[in-house]
């Protein structure tokens, strides 16, 4: 589904990703872990198409297409979804209207009919139950005045509505208490199928107790320095990132 081949990226003059290789197949969950500043969020942003980052080398293939050639909106329409680490507050645009526009733009792109009000509302109702979000929130301005947990839950709601093929959760656990974390993780788990894949970007092992990964990759200084199964996350939790750092310096 996704083939990341030797990706180098920088922001302004600073190199952040220094040759990332990663392949993800349908149905898989990959966790990307690493200390602060290792390039985890940059990788998520590069996949979603944030313009602040310049890819200087390498290629990314998504479902057989060149992802880097696509605009952010086309990536979304092809099935990429980024759950933001810091969801943006947008006064004057309600989540409902936002989702209606987004969903219909995606359907248009895929040559499907746009949804009428009734089918949209029934779809929304179904997804609200799935991700356990307060309906009243969705009629308010997007993320404006939402708590940290509400914002993250809204990201998962949007993900449920858009049914992406590849979901990238960028530090979705940051700032969540244990109950919010469980609800968000439940939502993500319910959305898993054999056809879609998930990348979980996180600093801590905690989230991975709820969203169990098939693979864990450790990012350090813009490279994947270690890959393994979910046990690697536990080992990291026990030994700390200094273990990786010292191992790298020895090498």
């Amino acid at each position, binding site marked *: 589904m996704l083939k990341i081949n030797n990706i180098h990226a920088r922001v302004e003059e600073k190199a952040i990703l220094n040759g990332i290789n990663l392949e993800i197949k349908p149905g898989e969950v990959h966790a990307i872990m690493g200390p602060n500043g290792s390039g985890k969020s940059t990788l998520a942003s590069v996949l*979603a*198409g*944030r*313009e602040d980052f310049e890819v200087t080398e390498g290629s990314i293939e998504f479902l057989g297409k060149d992802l880097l050639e696509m*605009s*952010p*909106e086309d*990536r*979304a*329409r092809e099935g990429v*979804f*980024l759950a*933001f680490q810091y*969801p*943006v507050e*947008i*006064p*004057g*645009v309600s989540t409902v209207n*936002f*989702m209606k*526009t*987004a*969903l219909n*733009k*995606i359907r248009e*792109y895929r040559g499907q009919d746009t949804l009428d009000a009734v089918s949209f509302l029934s779809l929304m109702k179904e997804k609200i139950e799935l991700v356990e979000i307060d309906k009243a929130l969705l009629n308010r*301005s997007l993320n404006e005045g939402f708590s940290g947990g509400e914002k993250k839950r809204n990201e998962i709601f*949007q993900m449920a509505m*858009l049914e992406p093929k590849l979901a990238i959760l960028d530090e979705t656990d940051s700032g969540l208490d244990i109950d919010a974390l469980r609800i968000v993780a439940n939502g993500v788990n319910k959305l898993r199928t054999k056809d879609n894949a998930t990348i979980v970007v996180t600093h801590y092992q905690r989230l991975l107790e709820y969203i169990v990964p098939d693979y864990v990759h450790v990012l350090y200084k813009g490279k994947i320095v270690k890959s393994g199964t979910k046990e690697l996350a536990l080992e990291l939790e026990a030994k700390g990132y200094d273990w990786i750092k010292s191992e790298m310096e020895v090498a």
Partner: protein
Amino acid sequence: MSTATEKQSLSTSLIASIDLAQFSFANEQRTKAFEAFKTIGLPEPKNEEYKFTPVTRSLSKHFSASELSKPTDANESVKSLLNPEFSENRVVFVNGMYSKTLSTITSDSKVTVQSLNEALASNPSLLFDQLNTTDPFALLNSTLWSDGLYINVPKNIEEQKPLFIHHLHDASSEKVSAHTKLFITVGESASLQIIEKTDTQGNQPVFNTISEDIIVGENGAVNYCKIQNDAGQLIQVANTTIHQHRASRADTYTLTLNGQLIRNNLNIIIDGEGCESHFYGLYLSDGDTLVDNHTTVDHKKPNSFSNELYKGLMDGKSKGVFNGKIYVRPHAQKTNAFQSNRNLLLSDDATVNTKPQLEIWADDVKCSHGCTTGQLDEEALFYLQSRGIPKATAKAMLLYAFAAEVMETIKNEQLKNYIDSIVSERLHKSY
């Protein structure tokens, strides 16, 4: 230097070319206004009140003194500019002259709508208060006005139907210099809703001044909406003064979508306790349009509330100017006065000059002001795009949301829908 001379010369030659003998009414007021105008003339570049808004330079570019001083003939081939949305209770001016054939005032209304020159005949002192101004264009209007209306809502009459005042300019073959005056009194516990709109057809330059005084009696209410969406080359200076008596309420909306150079002076005088005033502005400019809103709220009495919100979206090479004065006089204790001006610049060449001016003499008041100028939030744009929304649509959504904060405050549903439709069309079309 040469431009300064030109401006002075336009002012001087304008004064020389004005012949009050051409007018058959309001001569006493005209003479006084003209005398006052002569002492100040058209604003020069250094004039503090007009320093960002070169009305004089614009006039010099497009008009000779005699073209400015002589009223243009009315032409009724402007029917296509009329809005079907507002066909009832409509007053129409064409090139500054009241058009009886295009106006549709129903006789069952208790609201008096009378020619201002007739009203003056029975009450000669009606307009004297208007002469207490230092605005050169208000004085010029009082010198040159060719037609006007006196509108009166009697005590206890709450008029439900909005009064639609439409100023049409036909500039298809000739330059237009049009000057109208409105005098509106809303009686005690009475209310009136006014929608005023200007429209221009043709590409000849138009110079238009409108001066209006609205007096709101005790416990009365006025809701006033000005819509400026003129194609062509309109140079307009509008002076609107609202005098509020005790426990009255004023809501104003100033919506500017097009025109070449638009200057609105809105003055709210709170001359009674327990008043409430809300004034909103929305300006969407493009090309080389200049939109200038100068507002003044003068709290003269205690225990009143005023709230002001003006928002602007500027694209192309357009310019925005906002100046908001709040005066709280020594006796006006317990005043609450709030002001906010927010601007988005959508191109590198668009500019805005914004200046809040608070002068507070009372010590037990709550006042605040704030102004922001920025660009479209890139992070918000990316957020919308990352959900599959094309960049152009995402931009339009954000701009619409910015404008909607003002539009949502309009209570009249029909008016709100109309404004919404022109703003939506404008934002989707241009962005």
